[in-house]
């Protein structure tokens, strides 16, 4: 039955699955991702879903999407626009009409283009009947009808049959990209281990979709994307939030510390709590607190008692934690606060990405209250930055804020698995029994104070939020002491710059344009700069992960380019931070506050305009 269809080899391709939030598009996308990863493609993914669990059916607001970019070349973003769109209803088509490449393939479930469906999506007539999508390769697949037909003898109820539609769509896409279906079959067997009838039904529908695509004439060719040239090793897919959780697990084991998470559920950070809650076998204690404040306070209590203590949140929750974070600054206790940023202010855009909590992280507390601020920049390196945040906080006994974002947290990419022995050692700074102990005596080099843990004989002492006397840690209202302590707390963080690696630059060490970014924009900035470098342009990228303190060679880098443009998903917070730190240097800005990442094409267009000047 195999037809001889032309197989075209592609360097890279972007596929988007879109449908109602109940249509199972996230699952279809994840399955395609896992299969592609096992075939050795490099990839990046980006799920995009509404804040509501089940937004009104069939409306544009209720569209849930999953975009995946696979390639045999280095892939750094989930792709700007899709080569192939699966649209399960008119709303999904409408929501993505500007995000599909001219001439690309659109697979629509034609059964859901009734007048009622069109009306819900705000169409008066079907966009398939006019010239709205002229030049596109529209594949009208009767997905609902064929799914029902396939399962007519299965004995399943109508609801279960309806839910299998996503497998039909997945089958079509598997055929288009020449992918084997074994991985998904295995997945279904595990997922529905107790319901063999569902396993059989879903597999049957997926095969029906595959065969449908093979049979119809609408698809001119099937495509393949060969394995990427990745560094040798053992790989797996990781999502950013999962990688953060694992980074903490690795750090706790390496530091011989118990891991304690105090947290309160919040989008898009909850998956870190979920992931750590699974691993009690590794000694993790997770505490779902009554609110955001209790989450951080319990973590600080655990830190005082000797755990590697963390709290995870997003913008609004981070605001609630501000006072307690100030206490950790005053008492100089180790603590990592993870902020998986989302659109703000207030409740803002819970499921969309943004980088607008930078100022909150740096300055959002009462008093002179400096903290270390780090930012992860790819889903996979969330592992490394969670690990580094743990190392720094335990060795310097001062709190660290780790900034991630919704795009990194929910995004996935292949990760060359590390062993905890590959990571740098962690040496917590502790006082031991029998030692002469002064709670606020300091290490000469780092200015860090030692912790004495409850249960250690002879080292009983009191901590608190009132100003501390230098050395003794007793309560002190002395004016000179207060000023001195404020400067010590700043200096302690400044000195970390002496220990961290120098900032690196991608591209020439001097030139026309320096693109500056931080955190989660790395993929899109890198892709744009890489493309322009290949065209021979004099452009470099400087992407920061250490925000406070900044690496000590930062000024040297910034002085070597004619034009600097700071690109970020906010109105210019990092640019302003750089202006405070490097007065006299001109920082141009390129900003976006739409809840979405930068596209490579918009960045390239802007950088070209700067290069022309």
């Amino acid at each position, binding site marked *: 039955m195999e037809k001889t269809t032309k197989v075209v080899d592609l360097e890279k391709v972007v596929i988007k699955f879109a449908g109602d939030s109940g249509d199972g598009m996230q699952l279809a996308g994840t399955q395609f991702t896992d299969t592609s990863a096992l075939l050795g493609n490099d990839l990046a993914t980006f799920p995009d879903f509404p804040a509501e669990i089940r937004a009104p059916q069939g409306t544009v607001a209720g569209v849930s999407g999953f975009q995946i970019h696979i390639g045999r070349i280095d892939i750094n973003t989930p792709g700007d626009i899709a080569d192939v769109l699966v649209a399960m209803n008119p709303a999904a088509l409408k929501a993505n009409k500007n995000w599909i490449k001219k001439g690309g393939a659109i697979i629509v479930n034609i059964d859901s283009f009734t007048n009622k469906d069109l009306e819900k999506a705000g169409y008066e007539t079907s966009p398939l009947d006019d010239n709205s999508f002229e030049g596109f390769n529209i594949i009208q697949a009767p997905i609902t009808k064929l799914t029902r037909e396939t399962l007519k003898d299965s004995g399943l109820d109508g609801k279960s049959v309806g839910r299998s539609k996503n497998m039909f769509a997945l089958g079509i896409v598997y055929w288009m990209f020449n992918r084997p279906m074994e991985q998904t079959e295995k997945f279904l067997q595990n997922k529905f281990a107790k319901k063999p009838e569902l396993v059989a039904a879903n597999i049957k529908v997926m095969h029906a979709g595959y065969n449908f695509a093979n049979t119809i004439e609408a698809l001119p060719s099937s495509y393949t994307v060969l394995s990427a040239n990745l560094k040798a090793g053992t790989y797996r897919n990781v999502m950013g939030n999962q990688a953060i959780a694992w980074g903490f697990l690795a750090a706790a084991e390496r530091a011989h510390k118990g891991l304690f998470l105090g947290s309160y559920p919040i989008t898009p950070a909850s998956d870190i709590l979920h992931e750590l809650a699974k691993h009690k076998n590794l*000694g993790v204690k997770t505490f779902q607190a009554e609110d955001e404040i209790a989450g951080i306070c*319990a973590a600080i*209590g655990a830190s005082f008692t000797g755990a590697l203590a963390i709290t995870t949140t997003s913008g609004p929750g981070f605001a609630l934690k501000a006072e307690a974070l100030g206490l950790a600054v005053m008492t100089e206790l180790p603590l990592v606060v993870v902020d998986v940023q989302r659109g703000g202010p207030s409740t803002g855009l819970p499921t969309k990405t943004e980088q607008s909590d930078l100022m909150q992280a740096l300055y959002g507390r009462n008093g002179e209250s400096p903290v270390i601020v780090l930012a992860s920049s790819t889903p996979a390196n969330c592992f490394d930055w969670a690990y580094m945040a743990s190392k720094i906080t335990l060795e310097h006994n001062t709190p660290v804020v780790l900034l991630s974002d919704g795009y990194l947290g929910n995004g996935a990419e292949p990760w060359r698995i590390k062993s905890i022995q590959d990571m740098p050692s962690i040496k917590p700074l502790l006082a031991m029994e029998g030692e002469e102990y002064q709670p606020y005596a300091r290490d000469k080099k780092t200015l860090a104070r030692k912790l004495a843990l409850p249960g250690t004989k002879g080292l009983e002492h009191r901590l*608190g*939020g009132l100003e501390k006397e230098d050395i003794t840690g007793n309560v002190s209202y002395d004016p000179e002491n207060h000023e001195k302590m404020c400067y010590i707390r700043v200096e302690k963080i400044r000195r970390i710059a002496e220990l961290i690696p120098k900032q690196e630059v991608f591209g020439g060490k001097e030139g026309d344009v320096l693109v500056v970014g931080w955190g989660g924009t790395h993929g899109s900035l890198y892709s744009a700069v890489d493309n322009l470098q290949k065209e021979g342009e004099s452009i470099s990228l400087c992407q920061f992960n250490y925000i406070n303190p900044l690496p000590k060679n930062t000024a040297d880098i910034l002085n070597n380019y004619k034009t600097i443009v700071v690109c970020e998903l906010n109105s210019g917070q990092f640019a302003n931070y750089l202006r405070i730190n490097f007065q006299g240097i001109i920082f141009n800005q390129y900003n976006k506050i739409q809840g979405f990442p930068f596209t490579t094409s918009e960045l390239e267009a802007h950088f070209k305009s700067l290069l022309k000047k």
Partner: protein
Amino acid sequence: MEHLTNKDFTSDQEVRWCPGCGDYTILRAMQKALPQLEKKKEDFVFISGIGCSSRFPYYMNTYGFHTIHGRAPAFATGVKLANPNLSVWQITGDGDALAIGGNHFIHALRRNIDINILLFNNEIYGLTKGQFSPTSQKGIKTKSNPHGTTDEPFSISDLSIGAQGSFFARAVDTNPKLMQQLFRGAEEHRGTSLIEILQNCVIFNDKTFASITAKEVKADAQLFLEDGKPMIFGAEGNKGIILNGLKLEVVKIGENGITKKDILVHDAKEEDPTLHTMLARMRPPEFPAALGIIRKVSRPTFNSGMLAQLEYEKTNAKFKTVDELLKSGETWEVEG
């Protein structure tokens, strides 16, 4: 176990409460009670929030943490979960525990974490200089409500029982022996132990509990509840509490045919909270105020539940190290 005395628990910091403050007797009672407990000095931790009472940890020569306003239960929870071997004491006041910290307070009681909470109730804000608190009597005139409050006060015992607290006791700051006894009882109890201490603020709310604690009335105004003992009180030891229909009533033994046998016998371990609620609500002049351990029921603690899960998972887990976790699931090899 080395022998410890109250001096071992006294820190070198100058105590800075107002002269005559009820907090002094509570502090001394604590310093005397701790040596009586089977616990090493380094295993005690005192956690507080903000307010006059919350300066307490500075005066104890133990591990201590003076945290932020209202949040002490959350810190205490973190301490206990990180090291369940520690004896954790939370010191709080009516403003700290019931206003800004109300949420954490009820959740600590609900979870039944094995900590001891001492709530110094003086029905006023002291440290901020005299505003009404959530337990201030309705109508009280303060700086923040010069025309008298229109707030309905909380009943701490009702709140505790409503939040499923497993241990509720009440003391007065004028009775150090009773306090020592209740501190020991709280430490023995597995779960969140709440002790309300009626504490006098000499500056902003002086004598607010005089109807209970004044020398001339206290014999008739205080009922010491002891498990298994009849509820008898009074200067002459002839008053008792009976249940008349659905209400409590004060009676005199020897009058109207009442004998000792008719008097209610205290059962702190009774699961049904109805009688405990009624006893804890009693107030002069109609009733004596109930003191002692009013409710002490057995319930699994949050910390023991968490530890049991950790142990089970460690024994039955698929992997024992982080490296094994990182390599678990779908992986693939890329050849060099």
